Each structure stands twice: as C-alpha cells, then as structure tokens.
C-alpha cells in the first residue's frame, strides 16, 4: 500500500473548507447582528455585551485567520445591510470586526505548542478572543480622518472603550464554550 503524503494547508490557504466555514460564520454573525442581541452591563450607560461576537473570535480561532477575517468583515457588512440597509456606511467597523477575527485566527499558530489539551485550547481561545478584540478594533481610529465630527474623546469613550469591554467579555466567555463544544465533534468528523 502506498501512503500519499498531503501537506496540511497553511494558515493563509483559501480552500473549499475555508470558503464554506467563512460563509457559515458570516451568515451566523450577520443573522445575530440583525437580531441585535445586546445585554446592557449594569451600572454603565453605553456598554453592552453582544454575545454573538464570540462567534467571530471562535471562527477565527478554530478555522484560521482567513475565516476569521471573512466572518467578521462579510458578516458585519451583510448584517448592517439587513439591519440598516447600509452595507458600506460604516465599512471601517466591518474591517475592524474582520481584523479582530484575523488576529484571533493567527493566535493558535503562534501558541500551537502550548495548546496540549482541550482545556488549554479553551483558555487560549479566550485569550485570543480578547487580544483580537483589543487589536482589531484599533482600526476604528480611522474615524479621526473619515468622521471628523467625532473627536478623539468621543471615539475613545463613546466607541473604542465600550466596544472593547463589551466584546472582550463576550469573546472571553463565548469563544471557549464554542471551542469545548466543537473539539469533540471535529475529532469525530476527522478534522
């Protein structure tokens, strides 16, 4: 019998699997964005947690940076289109969502040696979600150029900090839950 050696796809390959997982991630993210789940954090005025944000970091962490980026970028664009009829009106937020997924997706490749068990994977998934959020949403500072009505203070206190806090909480809780649920199934499926 001859064994056929097949190289594992790298983090940046765009295979059929990447296309389909991205489409599912983007569809779920758009759907939940449209339904607009949001839980206000008690004692705050404008900080709310969107639990479905954890989907984005999960797709990045579990399936790689390309899936993470496309889930965030396309999911947010399509979600905005469904909810507000304006896919490109806030395109920089879509890019920021995509970058958050991308950073969360790069993380497992850096940390591969430390993820030895399902538990450690779940832990690093939470870390990846938070780091992805903090880094990815830095992109919204482009508003200083394209939305001059918003000053530095508004972007910092009205947008960046509330979004990063709310999304980090969602990522830290939801991403590991989904990793723990997906791991056994992915082994069954042979992935």
């Amino acid at each position, binding site marked *: 019998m001859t064994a056929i050696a097949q190289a594992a796809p790298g983090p940046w390959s765009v295979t059929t699997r990447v*296309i389909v997982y991205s489409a599912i991630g983007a569809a779920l993210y758009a*759907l939940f964005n449209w339904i607009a789940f949001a839980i206000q954090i008690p004692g705050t005025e404008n900080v709310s947690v969107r639990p479905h944000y954890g989907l984005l970091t999960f797709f990045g962490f579990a399936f790689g940076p390309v899936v993470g980026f496309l889930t965030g970028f396309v999911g947010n664009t399509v979600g905005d289109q469904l909810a507000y*009829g304006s896919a490109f009106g806030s395109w920089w937020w879509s890019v920021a969502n995509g970058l958050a997924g991308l950073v969360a997706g790069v993380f497992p490749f850096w940390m591969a040696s430390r993820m030895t068990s399902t538990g450690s994977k779940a832990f690093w998934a939470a870390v990846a979600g938070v780091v992805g959020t903090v880094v990815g949403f830095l992109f919204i500072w482009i508003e200083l150029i394209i939305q001059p*009505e*918003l000053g530095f203070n508004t972007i910092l206190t009205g947008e960046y900090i509330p979004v990063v806090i709310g999304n980090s909480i969602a990522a830290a809780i939801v991403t590991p839950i989904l990793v723990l649920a997906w791991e056994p199934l992915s082994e069954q*499926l042979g992935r």
Partner: protein
Amino acid sequence: MRAAFRYLGRGSWLARRDPRVLILVAVLFVFGASQVRDVRQLLVILAAALGYYALAGIPWRSVRLQWIYLLVVVTIFATFNAVLTGGQAGSFVGTETHLLLALPFGLTLTAEGLSLAASQIVRYLSFAAVGFPVAYAIAPGDFGVALRRLGLGDRFAVMVDLTIRFIPTLSTEFGETIDAQRVRGFDPLEHRGGLRTRLRRLAPIFVPVTVGSLAGAEDTIDAMDLRGFGTGKRVWYRQLAMDRASWVVVGVFVGFLIVATLLNATGLSEHYLLPFLVP
C-alpha cells in the same frame, strides 16, 4: 422570524439595471458623501439620494420599521456625540462655541454640537437611501456573479453568495432551536438575571445552532470538492450586461465622487453652523 434579503424592488427601474451598478453606486456614494461636511450640501445630496431610492420602487410599508429604527439609532448616536464633544470636533469658522444648555459632569449642549449632529444624521440617511436598493433591488442570486464581475476573485464571490443563501436557512434553524428550548420549559431570551446568567442562558441556542451548521457544512464542502471547486477557472451561468442607462448612472456617481473630493480638498465643505441655533 425570517432574515433574508427580500427582493422588494423586483421589476423597478433600478432592478432592471446591471446589479454591479447598484453596488458600485453605494461604494462611490459612501466615499463621496463622507467627504462632505456642510449640512446644506448634505441636504442636497440627501434629496438626490432619495430620488435614486425612489427608482428602486421599494414599498414603504415593507421598510417603514427599518427607516424608523435607523432614524432613532442615528439620532441617539449623533446627539450623544454632540453632547460629548460640545461641538468642538467640527471645522466651523472661528473657535468660539455658543452654549445652549449646561449639563451635569461639565457636559454642554452647544449650537455647534447640534449642527454637527444634523450633518451626521443627514449623511447617514443619505447612506441608507443609496444602500437600501443594494439589499432590495438586486436579486439575491445575483450578488455572487456581480461581485465576480466587479473583479473580486471567484472564491470570495462564491463565499458571499453562500453567505446570502445560508442566512434564511440558519434563521429558520435558529427559530426552531428557540422553540425546542421553550417546549422544554426553558426560555433562552428571558430578560431576567445578571450579565453572567443571561449570557449562560444563551449558550443552549448559540452552541447547537453554530455546531449544527458546522457539522452540516461537511455536505456542502464535499459537494463542492467533488465538482472540482477551485481547481480551474469558474464559469458563471448568469451573464451580466451593462446597458447605456447603467453606464449613465455609474458616470453620474463617479462625477459626484470627483465633485465631493474637490469640495473637500479646496475647503469648500466645512461644517456649517445652523444660524437659528445661535442665541
């Protein structure tokens, strides 16, 4: 509940144009209108955008709630921004601000802040007027081929196509999962308890819907692989053609982008202080 791109503008003048036109127009418009700050110019742009919107023939009753929701959200955000910045983020002539109301915590409501809010609200409404036809006047099955013909790669075009096709299916699965949990006496959407409790309560819907759709994706992946997806140049069944009217529409919006860029570059579109607000 059913989330999907509804083809509300079927048969309208815009729907008969090449779908690439509607996508291109939305992109050109966003980049153009983002550069305009003067609320008087923005009002002219909004009027033109509404004229374009009318060509899509979208029935008002079908999108009324969406417009109201959009107006409320944008107004709240713009007012919040006006209060937080006190109007100092604008590019008004002069540095003096006109105080209308002093608020707690050192916040102020100024004529400049409200003028900024007016600019933002008008701009977002014009974005929506040009964006709605993308959602409602393009046949959902045409998005993929339109993106491909706009120069994006086959894989990305197929991915967007699949996303749009998956949304109604996943929406149905989501509704069924909620119903299944409610039949068991558990309401995942109940508005009770603290943050942790409410987040934990959502897990029984997020996990099955996500994991179930991923497991189901294997069939789609296998079907695509068996048909040799990605191994060669993809042929799209649907053919698109730009007619003369399509070119004219694109030309008008390219012209708009050029004018808006010139206005911005020459400083002819700075923020305008609404005179009736000045005490």
